[in-house]
């Protein structure tokens, strides 16, 4: 049976990749047990570097490794991997267009118990703003594995955003990653929902709920940057309007990217995302998603408001 946890799929794929290419190096900042970098650490310790709780140093070290021919993957919770090390990613890595892969694990609100300090709701925005940065938000574990394989095989500075929790796959196991290719996962004719990460599953749930009343197209936009503008325009052009859904602030994330893509094609739009707030601790993932307005019902409501004008 296919893996249903993105972190586990990532770790297992990294280990396979490390076996295939000894130049791949995995770096962790004392969270390898969570990022699943530990799978490499245990099986191939010579291709894993423990950097201690020092994400800034880890990011710059990765830049140096890439300059001597290594392909470093750096792991931590997204708030630390991308947030704490933002300047190092910008200055040490991205300006030089270095071949470094950054994995922001436990992103969004998926680390529900730890609360606001551990919940990355702004990382897509600031990673996306870095010139030439690729930003990938896989929909599920299958796609996380495919994206990891894609990242290892293609040069460039790339950010991979992963969920902490397990949920059912909606993409096919073993399918190659469809880079920069927004993918229709459910056809519909009235409203298009552009979603990424776990919100693709939530959007499918919303489409199901609305079936018979509103025909909803659901599009998995796992490559948030670069964003395939022609495809977005086409998928938004034959419906009444669009909804974006992401486990991220409504400022600067997928919603912003889609709005930028549609700038010459004014389309009624609604954003489902975090409404300029920090997160909170919660006892379950569902609880925090509901609290932050990130459920299928919230998407359905947004679709209805677009549909009804």
């Amino acid at each position: 049976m296919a893996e249903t946890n993105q972190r586990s799929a990532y770790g297992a794929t990294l280990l396979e990749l490390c076996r295939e290419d000894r130049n791949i190096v995995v770096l962790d900042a004392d969270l390898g047990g969570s990022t699943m970098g530990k799978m490499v650490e245990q099986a191939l310790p010579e291709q894993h570097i423990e950097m201690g709780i020092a994400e800034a140093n880890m990011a710059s070290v990765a830049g140096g490794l890439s300059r001597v021919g290594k392909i470093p993957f750096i792991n931590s919770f997204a708030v630390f991997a991308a947030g704490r090390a933002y300047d190092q990613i910008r200055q040490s890595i991205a300006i030089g267009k270095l071949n470094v892969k950054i994995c922001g694990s436990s992103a969004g609100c998926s680390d529900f118990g730890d609360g606001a300090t551990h919940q990355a709701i702004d990382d897509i925005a600031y990673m996306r703003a870095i010139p030439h940065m690729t930003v990938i938000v896989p929909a599920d574990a299958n796609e996380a594995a495919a994206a990891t394989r894609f990242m290892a095989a293609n040069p460039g500075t790339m950010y991979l955003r992963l969920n902490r929790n397990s949920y059912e796959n909606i993409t096919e196991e073993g399918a190659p990653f469809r880079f920069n290719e927004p993918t229709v996962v459910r056809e519909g004719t009235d409203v298009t929902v552009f979603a990424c990460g776990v919100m693709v599953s939530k959007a499918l749930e919303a489409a199901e709920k609305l079936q018979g009343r509103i025909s909803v197209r659901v599009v998995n936009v796992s490559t948030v940057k670069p964003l395939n503008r022609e495809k977005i325009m086409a998928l938004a052009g034959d419906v009444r309007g669009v909804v974006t859904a992401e486990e991220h602030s409504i400022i600067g994330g997928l919603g912003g990217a889609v709005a930028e893509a549609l700038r010459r094609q004014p389309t009624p739009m609604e954003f489902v995302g975090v409404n300029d707030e920090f997160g909170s601790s919660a006892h379950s993932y569902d609880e925090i998603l509901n609290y932050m307005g990130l459920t299928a019902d919230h998407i359905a409501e947004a679709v209805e408001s677009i549909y009804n004008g």
Partner: protein
Amino acid sequence: MGYSKELISSLEERAKTLRRDVIECIGVGVAGHVGGSCSAADLLAALYFYKLKYDSKNPEWEGRDYFLLSKGHVAILQYSALAEAGFFPVADLPRCKEVGFYLQGHPHLGTPGIEVGTGSLGQGLSLGLGMALGLKMDGKPNRVYVMVGDGEQDEGQIWEAAMAASAKNADNLCAIIDNNGLQAQGKLTDRLPVEPLAGRWSAFGWNVIEIDGHNMEEIVAALDAAETYKGKPTAIIAHTVKGKGISFAENQVGFHNRALTEDEYRQALAELA
């Protein structure tokens, strides 16, 4: 110490040339990092014309040593060394900071001989550590040298890198600290003291060598000693004078990044003749 007088005096002459290149490049009326360039000029002369292995016609040559200027604001000094070493024409130096030109205000990947971009202080040592670890993984003998400023020691990342480098036994890594005692806004002792540097680097697990950063014989001896020292990375703490070689700029905070007047420009070149 067994170094020939010819070697030492030729390196001293190189250092003087680098300082002259820096002044000619900065010119009159435009701000430039005179002070920190001149404090590090002897160190860079020894690195580029004595210690580092490189092929200026093939900057990406696999056998090269790596030099990173973590105190990237004195890029003009490194550009002067690279130009004098043949990486690109000396005649291009005055075009530094022209829009779109390959000589940017801070080191930029893509300029021949520049290994990484630097400028956000505190990151160069980590970048160098990454190179050192990667080279060790492949069993390669190349060495990595990183010049860091003393004001730069304020940055916490320096100490993250220092801790990690000794933990990983990165003895192919050498940090050279340009200890001129001044930072942008004043004396280190008045702004944010970083002493005792030797004690701190030693406590972080490094082999520490202290030298007069303007004594060429001491510089080359320290670089040689760092290369043969095994088991720990080496920190060379070079005691220097900011603005060294230009009488009116020596030890003057104001010359961190300042424009020269016509008279100052002429006097500086006369003193460096």
